């Protein structure tokens, strides 16, 4: 079996597809962390939104309603972190961990309450939508432009977020708040407002990532279905050096590993498939160990801000 058989165009297409949830969530987390708020609860945000997306699509029959509901629920989940850490100055890591546990519980209970004892619920989802002219481009066309709408959203989101962060006044304030909240406060900007907005939008984008998994990829909800992708998105933010483009590249790396292990299973390699399943997680661990230097991290990441405390 040759390498070309493994790393062919359908592997590339699968990489993009599998990377999308991680990449979208990483965009949201980049925004939040640039403002200095670490959302360890990203996994829980994605899980809640994946579920909300399925519920929305199930009742309305339209994946679009599911998408909106999913993003809303993502923002609401992040609101827990915002209120607890920005307003009440609770430890961000603790709250984030609590959000993850809460999401497991809530989605589990509601899932059974709404759908009974079915193990999985299948709903209307986002189908691949070839973009008319672009998908005709040889080689790249089918790979890049025969995906679903959520993938295309990602294409737009990354440059948009880059521009917002590095070209607008609001982005400047976000980056400054993540480094030196006191400087921002004394410059006459409300640290609280900036952080709330960044965390809530970050949560909505995390929700987008969750929906892209439940409605864009698996077309179902199952308990614990995020299975670590939220944490991979967190790793992608670090690996991508807190830059939107870097986050996407990192997500593609993880997605590529995921696609690879799927291929190897299909091609029937003589390795227990559990080992294959481990591959993306092992890579995440390795990249974190190698790249998680503190050098380029926002200086005030994880630190709450209060005026009179010194």
């Amino acid at each position, binding site marked *: 079996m040759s390498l070309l058989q493994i790393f062919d165009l359908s592997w590339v297409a699968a990489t993009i597809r599998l990377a999308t949830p991680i990449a979208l969530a990483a965009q949201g987390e980049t925004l939040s962390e640039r403002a200095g708020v670490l959302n360890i609860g990203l996994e829980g945000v994605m899980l809640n939104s994946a579920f909300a997306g399925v519920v929305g699509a199930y009742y309305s029959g339209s994946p679009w309603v599911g998408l909106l509901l999913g993003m809303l629920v993502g923002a609401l989940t992040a609101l827990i972190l915002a209120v607890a850490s920005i307003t009440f100055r609770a430890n961000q890591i603790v709250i984030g961990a609590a959000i993850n546990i809460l999401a497991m519980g809530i989605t589990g209970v509601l899932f059974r309450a709404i759908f009974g004892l079915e193990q999985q619920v299948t709903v209307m989802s986002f189908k691949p939508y070839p973009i008319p002219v672009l998908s005709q481009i040889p080689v790249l066309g089918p790979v890049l432009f025969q995906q679903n709408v959520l993938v295309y959203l990602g294409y737009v989101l990354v440059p948009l977020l880059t521009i917002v962060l590095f070209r607008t*006044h609001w982005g*400047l304030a976000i980056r*400054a708040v993540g480094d030196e909240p006191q400087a921002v406060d*004394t*410059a*006459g*900007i409300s640290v609280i407002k900036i952080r709330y907005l960044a965390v809530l939008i970050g949560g909505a984008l995390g929700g987008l990532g969750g929906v892209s998994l439940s409605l864009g990829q698996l077309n179902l909800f199952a308990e614990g279905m995020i299975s670590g992708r939220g944490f991979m998105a967190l790793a992608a933010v670090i690996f991508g050096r807190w830059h939107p483009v870097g986050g996407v590249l990192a997500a593609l790396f993880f997605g590529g590993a995921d696609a690879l292990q799927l291929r190897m299973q299909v091609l029937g390699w003589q390795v227990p498939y559990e080992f294959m399943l481990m591959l993306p997680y092992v890579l995440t661990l390795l990249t974190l160990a190698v790249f998680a230097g503190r050098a380029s991290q926002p200086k005030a990441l994880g630190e709450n801000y209060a005026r009179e405390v010194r």
Partner: protein
Amino acid sequence: MTKPILEMKQITKSFGSLIANDQVDLTVQPGEIHGLLGENGAGKTTLMNILYGLYRQEAGEIYIDGNPVQICSPKEAISLGIGMVHQHFMLVHNLTVTENVILGQAKKGQLFINRQEAAAQIKAKAEEYGVELDPWAKIEDLTVGLRQRVEIFKALFRGARLLILDEPTAVLTPPEVEQLFQLLTNFVRQGNSVICITHKLHEIKTICDKVTILRGGRLVGTYVTNEVDADELAVLMVGEKAVTPVKSRKSGNNKVFLKVENLTTELDEGDSPLNQLSLEVYEGEILGVAGVDGNGQTNLAHCLAGLKQPKDGKMWWAGKEMNGLSAKVLAEQGLAYIPADRHGTATAMGMSLAENLICRRFSLAPFSCKGFLSPKAIEHYVQAKIKDFEIKTPSPLVRLAALSGGNQQKVVLAREIDGEPRLIIAHQPTRGLDIGSTNYVHRVLMEAAQKGASIILLSTELEELFAICDRIAVLYRGQVMGILPAQETYLREVGLMMAGRVEPKGVDDHHH
């Protein structure tokens, strides 16, 4: 009579049981430079933080141009024309000068940053005030003096008419102080006002029209600077306590204790690398190291304290090689290090006063017994130190960050000078301290020298060096330009050497 630009009436503010401001009044007229004077912890910064909307007073009113105002946030202070340059600068280090200045300055509906336009405006403003400022430089690449300039322009750009400066000269070199004063004079000539906090009485005399003095959170009074002299100011500031004059002492003996030969360090950011630096310090001697900040002082201190490995060169103390010894071993063998960076290197601000005091020896008896800390012994020791060093604190258990700057420094001294050190490296030990605390630090150092310790005092304040040192080495770009006896007659030479100009007659150290 014109309306005062600012009136603060009966301002009161407390932190827990501590009253930081107790019914304080302050009035500032247009066109006036107003000094604010007081010991460490007198409540100067607190009062200004209230004016800038960072703290909220419990009682008292503020009037701007005669109108009563509520200032709940810096945003409101800015819109009232108040600007503040803090004791610790409020700049985002990995952004550029322009980005820092325009932060929060978006006009209504303006989404995108126009860096070119903003940079041009900053350049124009700088020229108007006759100073240089590179709008494209990153803050982290700027000297402290330039960073301060950025802070001032940040305030000017927000249309400040009343500029508050919290100890602006503590970190500046003499020429930078000159430039700053020039800039302030230009600023008030246009009818604006300045409030300037400082511990240096001669600065008050030089640029301030009036001075308000605080003591222990209370107002002592407001005085016209021409009508009081520096000694009177000092007495007003500290109250009945006499200002302890610095005692003279006999200088060290002839035995060389520390010998440094051809010390050279790698290139790094922030400080000049050392370049073949050599010097000797005698037993019981205080060797001053003069020089403009950033000429290798930090590298020298770090090499000696075992925090940095030199690339080349050797160091001996008491005839034994010091190279390669860790900071821990050096400290155990009698090296005391008082770093310039009080917040980062010298202390753990989030930990208690007691923990900071014992953190060098916590693992040894009596503080530790069979692997556990013994609170009794610690308490006993800490209480004694608080008494000896007159550290003002509500309790030994408060976070160090809650103490005023002067008291934080006393904690560092108390810890380091404990147990007869043989070598003391003191880097800017009196930066930001009031006269009383400064004299206190000097006394502690001189007593240590009297007991036989060798001391290297790195300072940018010539006055301080000439007051307590035996000899003065001048550092310039990582090299020793010359070593002179600490006598006023050599003031000019030291000044020239600091600027990198060597005097041909180069007197050396043979006064022993």
